[in-house]
């Protein structure tokens, strides 16, 4: 069976406020989908309806074709989730909490033991397996929660900002874990407002703003949405460069629309075109003999699209 998540006309209103407005979205297959949007966009509201924590005003959510609202037990049986940093009963150890959740899912005791060892190792919490969760730091709890979501080796994993509350090392480890999950036959649906995280681990993105889906596409195709738009490129040099030199040598290069100075050694070039044009420009800049040491987009394509789409929404 191909793992899938589907929202059909999913709507949530809190009084007169519409948190989610007729979301129609279907994601399926073994991949990682980033669910993006600014704070208050409706990401967590959507995920909560997928896990039956809140109820839709209209519409339905499906996991692997099973309606969450009419049969939560069956729908959630093939899904692991992490919504809003949950708490495990403080007097239980991770091992006991996993025994409970595994047993409730119908896993056999030996299966629970084996999977517990694997997932705790994956989140680097093995040595804490028999300590009470109540003594853990927020970051440690989040690791255990991620492990809990993966315990049953589910087809579908729903993660709500999984790196929340983690230190930079923890965030990097979570990304690594999610990347590792992608190698298996699993659909990962992960909300985030950290664009670099999404770029790092996701194959597809869905952008939500003010309860409305703005677009959903493959990450590789997001840059196409910019069309022939102008992109910012940061170029750094070993030594300061005069404005006159920039005007004479850099400005005339093909694709360069304009430039601005960030520091004596760093320029931001507004460049028209996609990756081929950038590649050509890089070669030409390096060939000028100005001591080019760094050449990168000032913002990722996703960031550009994100900001553009959100600002369109604001307007």
């Amino acid at each position, binding site marked *: 069976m191909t793992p899938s998540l*589907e929202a059909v006309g999913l709507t949530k209103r809190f009084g007169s406020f519409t948190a989610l407005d007729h979301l129609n979205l279907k994601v399926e297959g073994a991949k990682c989908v980033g669910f993006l949007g600014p704070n208050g966009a409706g990401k967590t509201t959507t995920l909560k309806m997928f896990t039956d924590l809140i109820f839709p005003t209209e519409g339905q959510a499906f996991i692997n074709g099973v309606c969450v609202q009419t049969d939560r037990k069956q*729908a959630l049986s093939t899904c692991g989730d*992490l919504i809003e940093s*949950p*708490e*495990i009963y403080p007097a239980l150890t991770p091992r006991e*909490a996993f025994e409970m959740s595994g*047993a*409730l899912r*119908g896993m056999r005791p030996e299966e629970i033991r084996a999977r517990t060892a694997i997932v705790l190792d994956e989140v680097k919490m093995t040595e804490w397996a028999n300590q009470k969760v109540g003594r853990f730091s927020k970051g440690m709890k989040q690791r255990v929660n991620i492990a809990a979501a993966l315990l049953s080796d589910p087809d579908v994993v729903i993660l709500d900002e999984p790196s929340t509350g983690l230190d930079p090392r923890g965030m990097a480890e979570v990304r690594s874990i999610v990347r590792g999950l992608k190698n298996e036959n699993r659909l990962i649906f992960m909300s985030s407002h950290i664009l670099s995280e999404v770029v790092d681990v996701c194959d597809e993105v869905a952008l939500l703003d003010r309860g409305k889906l703005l677009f959903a596409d493959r990450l590789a195709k997001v840059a196409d949405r910019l069309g022939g738009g102008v992109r910012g490129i940061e170029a750094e040099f070993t030594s300061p460069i005069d404005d006159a030199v920039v005007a004479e040598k850099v400005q005339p290069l093909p694709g360069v629309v304009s430039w601005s100075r960030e520091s004596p050694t760093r320029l931001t070039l507004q460049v028209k075109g996609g990756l081929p044009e950038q590649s050509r420009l890089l070669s030409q800049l390096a060939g000028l003999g100005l001591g080019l040491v760094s050449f990168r987009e000032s913002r990722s394509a996703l960031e550009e699209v994100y900001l553009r789409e959100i600002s369109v929404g604001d307007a």
Partner: protein
Amino acid sequence: MSAIPVPVPTEGGAAGGDGTLGQVPSTFQQVLLLSRYQFRDYLRSRRFILMMAIVAATGAILTAVVAYFRPSSLLDNANDFYGGLWAGGATFLILFAGIIFGGDAIAGEFQNKTGYFLMGLPVRRATVYAGKYLAVLLASLVSILVYLAIIMGNGTYYLGVGAFSDLGPLAASIALAILYLLALMGFVFLFSSMFKTSVYAVLVVAVLFLFGFSIVQTVVLDLAHIEPWFMLSYANGVIGYPLSGVPAHIQHVRNPFTRVTATAYNPTYLEGIGVMLGYWIGTTFAGLFFFEREEFT
């Protein structure tokens, strides 16, 4: 991935069909599983230590009082002994157990976010409710049984084998105490399901049972001059009947100082058991009704 309108599914959704769905335990099995781990959590919690301290203090005070005064009215036979020590103490301890273990049973799932962990599992809300109900019942019963052991220990010391000569009335009183515990827990779970903040739930239940019901009962009795049969705190009076005997349903008591005759009521067995059963069933299902509709916002 598509962001376009998709076909509207049939009622109930499509079948899962990967062969793993049937492995999820039955609702009944899940209730037992959940209650086991919840009970384990209670046994290790500070609240259990607090409850045991209350039980120990109550038992110690009664033991000391009996040892010091040696009231002949209690030491004649087992029924008098248990009637004097068991019923009142058990009612008091059941109230504390209900508040301590049950007050935040449901509200705590929202406030402490443990519900986000539980409700992400393939379990029905009713399963969570029943599992927690069973765990609170077990934890409360453990407390009550410890108190019973203290009382019976005292009985053995003072009455010897006579303490075990006729345990039928004590067993009947224990059964009524358990019915009262169930009714109280239903009430506590109802309030716990109505609030998302544990403190509010615990406070409302505590204030209601420690003061509110007593005040309402007094008002009903003294001002309205009617029998407060509908009050749970009135109905629980039957707990001691198997041991002390059934008092007159209506008693007229003349105050020697004010020379005013007041009417006192005692619940009949039928009233007491009926009202406790009614509270148990009514409030338990009302609590489930609220929990089924409460959102984890």
